[in-house]
């Protein structure tokens, strides 16, 4: 059982091949938003470097959001196109689930965060190891203070003394989050990237359960409405 996974949710694009033995191939291009130009080439290189062909793939995994709206659609449109043309099932994996999976064994409140701009962070909360990773919140868009407050609630609730944060939201709000969370916060010192391999591992787990998505109705998880819809809801006029 082989998964081709693709991730274009953030400025970094990734492609991975995962099977029952684990990760077979992974490439990351952290070169900013030019995924439309590079993604398919990256997929083609993945096959050429591994001697796999598209026919060998059993399902296509794609990071489904949140993240850059356009980036998510590039990944999703590519996954749908491949899935339909090659007659493969598609499996959408939420970005924050994939990011949390990357550090699933850490015995803490796990909180992957992405820079959502406009002073906010996309984030979700998970109960880390031991035991299987468990998501305890929705996918959210929050200000750093609201995120810290929600984190405290979950830490009390789950009796966890540490919160482990990863993602480019850490890079953007590191000092502010340190001020808010103090010693309870642990996070990588280096910038940390989402990985297509995490999406691939999670998609593989779903595939062996027979849990696939409908290629027609699978859609990005945006978390946020479009700006025009927000303005309309606030009665400001769309334009």
């Amino acid at each position, binding site marked *: 059982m082989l998964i081709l996974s693709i991730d274009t949710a953030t400025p970094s694009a990734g492609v991975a091949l995962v099977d029952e033995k684990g990760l077979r191939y992974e490439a990351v291009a952290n070169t900013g938003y030019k995924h439309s130009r590079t993604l*398919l080439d990256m997929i083609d290189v993945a096959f050429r470097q591994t001697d796999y062909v598209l026919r060998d793939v059993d399902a296509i995994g794609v990071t489904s959001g949140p993240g850059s709206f356009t980036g998510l*659609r590039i990944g999703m449109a590519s996954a*749908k196109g491949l899935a339909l*043309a090659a007659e493969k099932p598609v499996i959408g994996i939420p970005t924050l689930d994939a990011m949390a999976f990357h550090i699933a064994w850490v015995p803490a409140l796990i909180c992957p965060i992405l820079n959502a701009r406009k002073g906010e962070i996309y984030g979700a909360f998970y109960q880390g190891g031991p035991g299987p990773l468990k998501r305890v919140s929705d996918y959210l868009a929050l200000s750093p203070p609201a995120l810290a407050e929600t984190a405290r609630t979950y830490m009390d609730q789950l009796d966890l003394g540490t919160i482990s944060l990863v993602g480019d939201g850490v890079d953007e709000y590191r000092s502010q989050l340190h001020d808010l969370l103090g010693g309870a916060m642990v996070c990588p010192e280096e910038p940390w990237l989402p990985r297509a391999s995490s999406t691939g591992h999670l998609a593989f787990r779903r595939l062996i359960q027979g849990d696939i998505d409908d290629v027609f109705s699978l859609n990005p998880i945006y978390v946020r409405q479009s*700006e025009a819809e927000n303005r309309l809801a606030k009665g400001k006029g769309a334009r």
Partner: protein
Amino acid sequence: MKQSGIRILGIETSCDETAVAVVEDGNIIRSNLVASQIEIHRRFGGVVPEVASRRHIEVIASLTEEALKEAGLPRQEIDAVAVANSPGLIGALLVGVSFAKAYAYGLNKPLIGVNHMEAHIYANFLTENKPIFPAVCLVVSGGHTSLLYMERHREFEMMGETRDDAAGEAFDKVARFLGLGYPGGPAVQNAAALASPGKYHLPRVYLDRNDFEFSFSGLKTAAMNLWNKLQRSGEDAEVNYLAAEFQEALVEVLVEKSINAARQKNVKQILLAGGVAANARLRERITAEASANNIQIHIPALELCTDNAAMVACAGYYQYLDGDFAGLDLNAFPQSGLLVKKACG
């Protein structure tokens, strides 16, 4: 490479229509599906790019499957995938481009990147009665107003274009200003049909110039100023008459310049293209003027004037014949480029 029975899958997502079509040999439309977003954007009073992009990704997969089903073709019998990759809303284009690239790759078929405005012109070839070269093309849409000279397939010489607003853009803005509704073209046309031009006067901008440039921003502003003045004066301001005069002023310039361009180039045919080619008054006036000048007018069927994918597949067919295929790095571009690149070629 085979020379007949060539089936191109066309994909179009440059603005607010998701469209997929299958066209055989450049003129046999096997299927032509359009998922319009007009109702979705109406409450915003215009196309919202992010909302359009979200809708494209929701429908592109099912629309593609339906188009193939309606064409009665297994997907392996498609010879190439053509997609509009410029000009347009970048986020919207990227949905179609990303999907088309992956679909072509998955099928192991050639990929073709098509210029959306060229595709509008090629809507004229979706018929048995194909245009004859050389020809002059009037391309009028929400994003373009250009006169082009075409001597052979895929070669365009730019004769002139708008310096500011496109004709369709002026329709939209005036319609919104006058509260006529959305989309602007049909709204102005419907209002104008209830009245006649001449009650008010608006300028025929650039009509006195001896070139093929257009300007519609001034006309739009003149219409808005006149409306404000009428409202202030307490006179009985009749919106339908203003709409009729606005439409007439715009159409008159388009028609005169097109006829002049055809006469200067000594061509026998004018090809109309783009969404504004659906305007009844433009179709009527240009047909009459051309006939008086012994010139033939070629106008695509109404549903092929507005955005569709059959025109993309048709333009793609002529690129297919030239072996002009795209690589895996095909990207989307908001600006046209293509028509300009070939200008004066």
